[in-house]
């Protein structure tokens, strides 16, 4: 018998620190498979966020640089401009990308920087203690919205993929869910496409992934997977929102 499914070479054998059932591990694997597929591991640098994925340098077999909270798109811009031969990806959570780093992500996308951004949206701040994020759903209880997110005081949850798709500078924008095997395989395809865009100098690529945070949702892994389908997908629809066929100006 031959192995038909193994861990990608882009990841090492360390035990990940993520909570049981957390979606980060699956997203790490999909990114690792893309690096293997395009054979770009030796010229890839990742940019880690502040958040639960802050320790991702422990898991990837490529260089990872740590950016201040929310700033991975700015750090990625600097690296890609000084070393256009490298493949640069930013990996960010929703507190990092959609709140603290909103200016950085919008402007990097609008400039059409030739980098890839992997956006892990679990509708809550993870590592910092389960606070409300810009993506927290209406009515969702968090440590800073104990009675549920309130429209009148907190506004609507923000849809990053749709927003970035409206910017002329973006080349590829998609959202997928890490819940069922079928959705995970769709997410895999989009992550591959996002890296392919960068390899072909096609400009800014962005993949948002709806993932579980069983710990801060106060749910079991099973219940969390169900919540993605029942609550997250109805508000954050899945699909490819934008895909340019030719690069604008690179």
């Amino acid at each position, binding site marked *: 018998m031959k192995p038909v499914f193994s861990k990608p070479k882009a990841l090492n054998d360390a035990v990940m620190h993520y909570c049981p059932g957390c979606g980060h591990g*699956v997203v790490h694997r999909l990114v690792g498979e893309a690096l293997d597929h395009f054979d770009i591991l030796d010229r890839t640098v990742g940019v880690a966020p502040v958040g639960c994925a802050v320790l991702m340098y422990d898991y990837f077999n490529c260089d990872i640089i740590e950016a201040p909270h929310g700033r991975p798109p700015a750090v990625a811009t600097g690296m890609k401009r000084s070393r256009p031969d490298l493949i640069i990806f930013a990996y960010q959570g929703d507190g990092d990308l959609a709140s603290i780093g909103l200016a950085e992500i919008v402007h990097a996308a609008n400039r059409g920087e030739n980098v890839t951004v992997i956006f892990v949206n679990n509708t809550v701040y993870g590592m910092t203690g389960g606070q409300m994020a810009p993506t927290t759903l209406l009515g969702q209880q968090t440590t800073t919205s104990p009675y549920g997110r309130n429209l009148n005081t907190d506004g609507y949850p923000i849809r990053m993929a749709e927003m970035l798709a409206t910017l002329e500078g973006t080349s590829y924008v998609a959202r997928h869910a890490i819940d069922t095997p079928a959705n995970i395989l769709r997410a895999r395809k989009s992550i591959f496409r996002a890296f392919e865009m960068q390899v072909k100098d096609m400009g800014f690529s962005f993949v948002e992934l709806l993932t579980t945070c069983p710990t801060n949702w106060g749910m079991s892994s099973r219940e969390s997977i169900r919540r993605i389908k029942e609550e997250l997908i109805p508000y954050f629809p899945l699909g490819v929102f934008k895909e340019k066929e030719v690069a604008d100006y690179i």
Partner: protein
Amino acid sequence: MATIKIERDKCKGCVLCVDVCPYGLICQEKAINDQGYQYVVLEDPDGRCTGCTLCAVVCPDICIEVFK
């Protein structure tokens, strides 16, 4: 013929693999592993595993390897 190998001490007992196996071949043990989690094992005495990889696709800790 197909089978899977689960790295016992990496498993966190989230049971997501248990839920997706079409034949219910993965079971959670009462015992705990090095990390303190109730790990899962393959129980496939009749060789029903098809190597479909669904369990490995959903495993967040990448501790399932599939052979065919």
